[in-house]
């Protein structure tokens, strides 16, 4: 483990500030790693090699700056974040050649903080999926076993970090899209509270559920990234006016006496034997360390998949209405009239899963079904959030699986959308409630040898304590990367 690209983000940060290594050296090491691993992993849709080298050289000319928290750190971005002058595709044919005229808020913040942006990572088209197989531009392979999916939708981000291409990256989480790939690739992934991070410039999937967040190899690393990402932005009025906190200073919590609520509806779901075994060991270790595990009934979670797939697709159907072939994105050749221009452009350029979800959402919002589906789902959403608030009143954090399966074979669920939707049960209720959740590696499955994750779920805007508890977990369950 002597190569520079093996350094964790926090380690690299220290060495950069101490001038032990230069931004250019670290960038070159990571670019070399990308070049060697990409033919197999294929985590990146665009590699910004030239810009990265230039940025790093410029940073080195000026010298390390402790006021810039990510000075010299190479990072990947899910290809859902708009990057000025750099192609941003959402892994869709619709945006295959789209070059944004502006940076997402978070991208500007990373640049200000001195980060070196390296690559745009693969995802399920418009972040709709759980395996990255719905990318229009090819599969990403799980670095732990290349016959397996990396998870999704931020599968490229997780695979890139797990393949040591960069020490950290940014994903987005609408129903688990940071936490699940993080777990399946052995990374740490944080979904912040809804409103903690600006969504400005992130291609929208479901606006009341989408939240940007970091992935890395250590808890402290995601804390550094969150510190830069979080905070007010008046271009997103759902973004909280609360200032970002100094997350990297979070003190490790104590497992002794820590009260962890176990949502029964999730733990009683069928878990793969590998996942069950890792979890059993984890529970024993937590109890041995003095944590108190408290089973909790959260009866409305049983409706969460149904509510989510109505609300998320309804919002997607309106958000994706903007792709009409007129102002940007792909336009169909020689349409007869305006209606055909809309319909042909969309039908040619949007993939099957995106079309399925747009149709489902349009159906849920259409006359005659709006009350029974959309309104009812929104009412159930309140019940689900109430369940969380009541449960969190009785414990410090909730503890849940991230995925009932370890990384699975390519194509396993290709013809079974319903089963794939059900797999999201572990992660999506948190998005309905808008809570922060931290996905942590808990160990390797004894049969598969693949990573298994656990997630801690906290109160709104309690990222500081959530990260503190994560640090305590990290001591009990050593990192896998």
């Amino acid at each position: 483990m002597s190569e520079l690209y093996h350094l964790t983000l926090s380690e690299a940060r220290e060495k950069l500030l101490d001038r032990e290594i230069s931004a250019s050296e670290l960038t070159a090491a990571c670019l070399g790693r990308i070049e060697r691993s990409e033919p197999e992993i294929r985590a990146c849709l665009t590699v910004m090699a030239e810009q990265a080298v230039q940025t790093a050289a410029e940073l080195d000319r000026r010298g390390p700056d402790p006021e810039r928290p990510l000075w010299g750190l190479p990072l990947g971005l899910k290809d859902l974040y708009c990057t000025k002058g750099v192609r941003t595709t959402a892994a869709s044919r619709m945006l295959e050649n789209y070059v944004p005229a502006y940076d997402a808020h978070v991208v500007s913040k990373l640049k200000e903080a001195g980060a070196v942006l390296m690559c745009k990572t693969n995802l399920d088209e418009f972040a709709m999926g759980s395996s990255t197989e719905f990318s229009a531009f090819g599969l990403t392979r799980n670095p732990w076993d290349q016959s397996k999916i990396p998870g999704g939708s931020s599968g490229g981000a997780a695979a890139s970090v797990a393949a040591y291409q960069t020490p950290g990256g940014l994903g987005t989480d609408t129903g688990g899209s940071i936490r699940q790939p993080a777990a399946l690739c052995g990374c740490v992934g944080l979904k912040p509270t809804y409103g903690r991070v600006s969504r400005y410039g992130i291609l929208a999937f479901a606006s009341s559920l989408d939240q940007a967040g970091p992935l890395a190899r250590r808890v402290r690393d995601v804390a550094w990234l969150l510190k830069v990402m979080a905070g007010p932005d008046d271009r997103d009025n759902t973004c909280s006016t609360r200032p970002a906190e100094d997350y990297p200073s979070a003190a490790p919590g104590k497992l002794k006496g820590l009260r962890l609520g176990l949502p029964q509806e999730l733990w009683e779901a069928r878990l793969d034997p590998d996942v069950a075994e890792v979890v059993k060991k984890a529970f024993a270790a937590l109890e041995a360390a003095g944590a108190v595990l408290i089973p909790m009934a959260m009866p409305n979670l049983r409706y969460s998949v149904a509510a989510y797939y109505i609300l998320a697709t309804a919002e997607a159907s309106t958000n994706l209405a903007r792709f009409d072939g007129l102002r940007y994105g792909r336009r169909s050749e020689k349409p007869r009239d305006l209606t055909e221009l809309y319909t042909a452009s969309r039908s040619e350029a949007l993939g099957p899963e995106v079309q399925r979800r747009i149709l489902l959402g349009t159906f849920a919002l259409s006359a005659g079904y709006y009350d029974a589906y959309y309104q009812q789902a929104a009412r159930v959403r309140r019940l689900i959030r109430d369940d969380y608030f009541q449960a969190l009143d009785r414990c410090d954090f909730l503890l849940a699986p991230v995925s009932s399966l370890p990384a699975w074979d390519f194509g396993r669920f290709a013809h079974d959308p319903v089963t794939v939707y059900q797999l999201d049960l572990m992660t999506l209720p948190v998005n309905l409630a808008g809570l922060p959740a931290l996905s942590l590696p808990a160990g390797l499955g004894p049969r598969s040898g693949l990573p298994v994750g656990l997630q801690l779920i906290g109160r709104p805007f309690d990222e500081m304590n959530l990260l503190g508890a994560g640090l305590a977990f990290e001591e009990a369950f050593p990192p896998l990367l």
Partner: protein
Amino acid sequence: MPIDLKTVRHTAELARLDPGHGLSPDEAEAALAKLADELAGIVAHIDILSEAETSGVEPLYSPLIEAPAPREDRPADCAHIEEILRAAPDRVGNFYVVPKII
């Protein structure tokens, strides 16, 4: 609630999608039928929502715990027309070009 071919066709029209785009009439019919099956399968699972007791429950459309505040109304720099129009599939001067509509 079963989703039949007619519902799918109507929904697709509303969404400006054509599941049979670029296919022969037979293939298009088959694609539509397959989609209707898939959507019916999904909706069958979603129908569990009707079991939830929600009388008197206010819908929750956003999980925000603080009411969003409008930003101050002041001029600010933004992307320029030329930068934005560069992404247009077809343009003349500062206008987007679309097929003739009248």
